[in-house]
C-alpha cells in the first residue's frame, strides 16, 4: 500500500483548522518511520550546497533513529518555509510529498519513507519599471533583479530612478544569505544620487556604499547592522540660500555604523493596519574612533505607531510617537584641542510635512534661517487619530475618514552665545556640548509643542497610503511654515 501525504509548505496555519479526523490523524502521525531518501526536483540552477544547508538537519535527525511521521512533517514544513524565504522559487508552488514504501527496510522492522520536494525556480532576470511613492516624493524607476546568480540565492538588484525630488539615483545591491540561512543576509550596496532639498535651498549629491548584515529573530523582529561610507556634497545652492546653508556647502564624508530594529506587529489582513503596533529604532555612530570621516556624532531615533480597533466595525483609534537625538562627538583620532564640531545640516533632523506632523510644510517645524529649514538636533513628535468608515462604502472598503491632532518640537543644539564672542569658532569642548544638549532637551518641553488638528480622507493601498486632509495649525513658533487648509500626503509610514 502506498500513501501520499502532501504538505503545503507555505501554509503554516494548517494545524489551527479544527479537524474532525484529528484523533485518527494524531494516531497516524505518531507511527514510527525511518527516512530513506529526500529528493529535490526542479532546482536546476540552485547549488546543492544551499539545499544541503536546509535539508541536512532533517537527514541528521533521522539518522539518529526512527522518527514519527509527525516530527518529520514538522521538519519538512520548516524546511519548505525556509526554501520559500530564499525568494528564488515560486511561492505557493513548493510541493512536498512523502511516499510510504509500505514495507520495512532491510535493516529494521520499521517502515521507510521517501520524501520528494518539487520546486519551480523563478526567472533569474527580472526587469521592472514603474512609479514609486516614497514619503512626500513620487518617482519613476527601472529595476533589474538578477536572482540566484551563483545558485546560492544571491541577488543583485540594480535600480535607476528619477523623481520630483530625486534628480537621479543609481543603486546596486548584491545580497546573499549567510550559511544557507534565508533569515541572515549579507548585502553590499553602492549608490550614487542627487536630490533636491528645496526646503533648504540646495541639492545633495551622494556617492557611497555600505555593508549590511540583516537578520530576523525567531520572534519575527528584524535587525540590521550596517557600515556605510558616503561622500556628501551640498551644492547648487538657490540664489536666496541662507548663510546657515552656505556655511555647510561643500564636501563631507560620513563614515558610520548603524543598527536598525523593526518589530512589526500590525494586523496584516488589510492595508489599513487598524490594530497592532510597529516599533522602529535606529542608532547611528558616525566618525568616532576608527570610523574617521568628517562628521562625528551619535544619532538615535525611535518611531512607535499603534492602533486598536473599537467595537464598531471599521473604527479604530491610533497614535504615533517619534523622538530623536543627534549628539556631537569628538573624533577618535583628532589632534588634541581640535574639539567637537557641531552638527551639519545634512545630519540634522527635519520635522513637519504631510506624512509627519500634518498641518505644516515639509521641514516646516524647527529652526529656520530665512526661508531655509536648517533642521534641529533633538525632536519629539506625536499624534493621535481616529479612523471611521466612510458612509455607504462600509468598513470593508480601503477608505476611511480620519480625525487627527498632531504636534512636535524640533530644537537645535545651543552654543550659549560663546560662538558669537569668538567669531568663527567651529569647535566645542565636551562640557559645552553636554550643556548645550541639556538646554536643547529642556527646550523641547518648554511651552506647548507646535500643534495642528484636522480631518481627512484616507485611502490605503498595499503600495502606499494616500491622505487628503484639511487641517489648521493651533500652536506654532514664529517663522515655522504652517499649512492651512488642504494637504495631500502619499507615503508608507505616517505619524
Amino acid at each position, binding site marked *: 500500500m502506498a500513501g501520499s501525504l502532501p504538505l503545503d509548505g507555505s501554509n503554516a496555519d494548517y494545524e489551527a483548522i479544527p479537524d474532525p479526523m484529528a484523533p485518527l490523524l494524531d494516531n497516524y502521525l505518531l507511527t514510527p518511520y525511518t527516512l530513506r531518501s529526500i529528493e529535490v526536483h526542479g532546482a536546476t540552477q540552485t547549488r546543492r550546497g544551499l539545499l544541503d544547508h536546509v535539508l541536512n538537519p532533517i537527514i541528521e535527525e533521522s539518522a539518529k533513529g526512527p522518527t514519527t511521521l509527525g516530527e518529520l512533517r514538522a521538519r519538512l514544513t520548516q524546511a519548505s518555509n525556509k526554501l520559500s524565504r530564499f525568494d528564488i522559487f515560486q511561492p505557493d508552488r513548493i510541493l512536498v510529498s512523502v511516499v510510504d514504501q509500505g514495507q520495512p527496510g532491510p535493516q529494521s522492522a520499521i517502515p521507510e519513507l521517501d520524501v520528494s520536494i518539487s520546486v519551480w525556480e523563478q526567472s533569474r532576470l527580472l526587469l521592472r519599471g514603474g512609479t514609486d511613492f516614497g514619503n512626500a516624493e513620487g518617482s519613476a524607476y527601472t529595476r533589474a533583479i538578477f536572482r540566484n546568480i551563483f545558485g546560492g540565492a544571491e541577488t543583485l538588484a540594480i535600480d535607476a530612478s528619477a523623481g520630483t525630488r530625486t534628480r537621479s539615483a543609481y543603486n546596486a545591491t548584491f545580497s546573499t544569505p549567510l550559511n544557507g540561512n534565508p533569515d541572515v543576509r549579507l548585502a553590499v550596496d553602492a549608490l550614487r544620487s542627487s536630490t533636491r532639498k528645496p526646503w533648504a535651498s540646495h541639492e545633495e549629491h551622494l556617492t557611497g556604499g555600505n555593508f549590511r548584515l540583516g537578520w530576523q529573530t525567531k520572534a519575527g523582529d528584524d535587525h540590521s547592522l550596517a557600515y556605510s561610507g558616503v561622500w556628501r556634497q551640498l551644492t547648487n545652492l538657490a540664489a536666496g540660500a541662507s548663510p546657515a546653508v552656505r556655511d555647510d556647502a561643500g564636501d563631507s564624508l560620513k563614515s558610520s555604523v548603524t543598527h536598525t530594529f523593526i518589530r512589526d506587529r500590525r494586523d496584516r489582513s488589510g492595508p489599513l493596519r487598524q490594530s497592532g503596533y510597529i516599533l522602529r529604532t535606529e542608532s547611528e555612530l558616525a566618525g568616532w574612533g576608527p570610523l574617521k570621516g568628517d562628521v562625528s556624532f551619535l544619532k538615535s531615533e525611535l518611531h512607535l505607531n499603534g492602533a486598536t480597533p473599537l467595537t464598531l466595525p471599521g473604527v479604530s483609534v491610533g497614535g504615533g510617537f517619534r523622538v530623536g537625538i543627534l549628539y556631537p562627538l569628538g573624533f577618535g583620532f583628532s589632534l588634541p584641542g581640535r574639539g567637537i564640531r557641531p552638527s551639519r545640516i545634512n545630519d540634522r533632523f527635519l520635522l513637519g510635512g504631510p506624512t509627519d506632523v500634518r498641518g505644516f510644510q515639509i521641514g516646516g517645524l524647527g529652526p529656520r534661517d530665512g526661508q531655509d529649514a536648517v533642521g534641529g538636533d533633538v525632536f519629539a513628535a506625536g499624534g493621535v487619530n481616529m479612523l471611521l468608515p466612510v458612509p455607504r462604502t462600509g468598513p470593508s472598503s480601503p477608505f476611511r475618514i480620519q480625525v487627527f491632532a498632531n504636534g512636535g518640537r524640533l*530644537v537645535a543644539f545651543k552654543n550659549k552665545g560663546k560662538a558669537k564672542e569668538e567669531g568663527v569658532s567651529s569647535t566645542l569642548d565636551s562640557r559645552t556640548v553636554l550643556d548645550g544638549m541639556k538646554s536643547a532637551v529642556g527646550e523641547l518641553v518648554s511651552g506647548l509643542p507646535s500643534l495642528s488638528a484636522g480631518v481627512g480622507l484616507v485611502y490605503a493601498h498595499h503600495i502606499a497610503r494616500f491622505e487628503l486632509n484639511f487641517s489648521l495649525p493651533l500652536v506654532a513658533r514664529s517663522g515655522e511654515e504652517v499649512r492651512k487648509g488642504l494637504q495631500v500626503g502619499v507615503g508608507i509610514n505616517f505619524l
Partner: protein
Amino acid sequence: MSTKSVRSWMPPIPRPLERLFNSVPLLTYDANELPARAQSSTASDIPTLYVFSTEEDARKGLPSFNPKCLKWQTFLKLSKIPFNIIPSTNHASPTSQLPFLLPARKPSPTASKPPGGIEPIPSSKLEDWVLSQKQKDQASPEKQDEKFHPRQEAYQSLLDVPLRNSWLYTLYLDPTNSNLVEKLYIHPSSSSLWIRATLRHQLRRAAESAILTTTHSVSSGGPLKGFAHGVVHPDEIYRSAKEALEALAYELSIDNRGAEGNTGWFFGATEPGLFDAEVFAYVYLMVRFFSRPESAEGEKESGEEETKLWLGDLVRQAGNGELVGHMNRILELTWPDLVVRDA
C-alpha cells in the same frame, strides 16, 4: 503663503474660511534658535565676503591665498568698507566660484522673528555694489568709473592670461608644489583620502583645461603659439609670465615718472583701484608662496631642475622692483604688518 497656492487652482476662499485661516495659529511662540554651526555666520551685522582661506586667517582678516578672492578682499579694504571674511568653498557660491559677498542683513522688525533671506552678490557685480555703498556714504558722485584708462584693457589681458596661467601652472601642475595645494585647498575640504584624491584630480584637470582654453583662444598669431596641441608647456608659460611682469613694471615706472604725476598706482590714478588690487593679489601671493628659499639658492646654481618656476623671483626681478614697491604700498593701506621689508 499657503493660501495663495491654494487659490491658484481653486475658487477664491470664502470669507468665513478666510477669517478662520487668519485666526490660526491660536498661539505663536518666539522663533526657534539656530543650530550652533549657523550662529556665528548669521549673527553678523556687516557684510561677509566668502573666500578661500583658513579659519584662523579668516578670523584675523588676513589675506586669502586665492588670487581672485584676494583681489576683491583687497579692493573692499581699499574702499574702506567694513566686512568679515568666511572660509568657504565654491559650492557655497551662486556662480560656483568664490568669492562672493553676502550683504548685511537688515535687522528683523522684531527680535522674535527669524532673520529674512538675503541675495548674495557674485564677484562680477561686486564693483557696482562697492560704488553704490560709497555713494551712499559720501553722497557725492564717484568719478572713478569714468576714468577707465585706454591702456587698461591691454594690461588686463596680461593678468587674465599669462599671469593667471603661470599661477595655475605653478600651484596646481608643478609637482613640487603639490604639498601646498594639499594644504591650501584639499585638506580643508575633507579628511577622507578618497574625497581628497578625487578633488586633487579635479583641481589638476580644471587648471590644465583653464590654461589650455586661454592659450588656444589667443594662439592665432599671438606670442603664445605652440600651445595648440593640448599640451601645457611650462617654458612658454614661464616666458609669457616674465614678459607680462616686465610690462606691468614698466607701466608702473612710466606712470611714476610721467606727466600724470608720481601717484604710484596704475595708469596714474590718484587712488589704487580694482586693477591695482588684482595686480597686488598675484604679486603678493607669488612673492609669498613662490620665492626661492634663501638656503636653496646654492643648489639651484648647479642647475639640477630648471623647470621649477620661482614666480616670486620673477616679480622681484621685473623692471627695477616697481612691482614689489607697488605691493608694499598696497600693504601699507591694507595689512601694514605684512609689508615686505627686505625688498
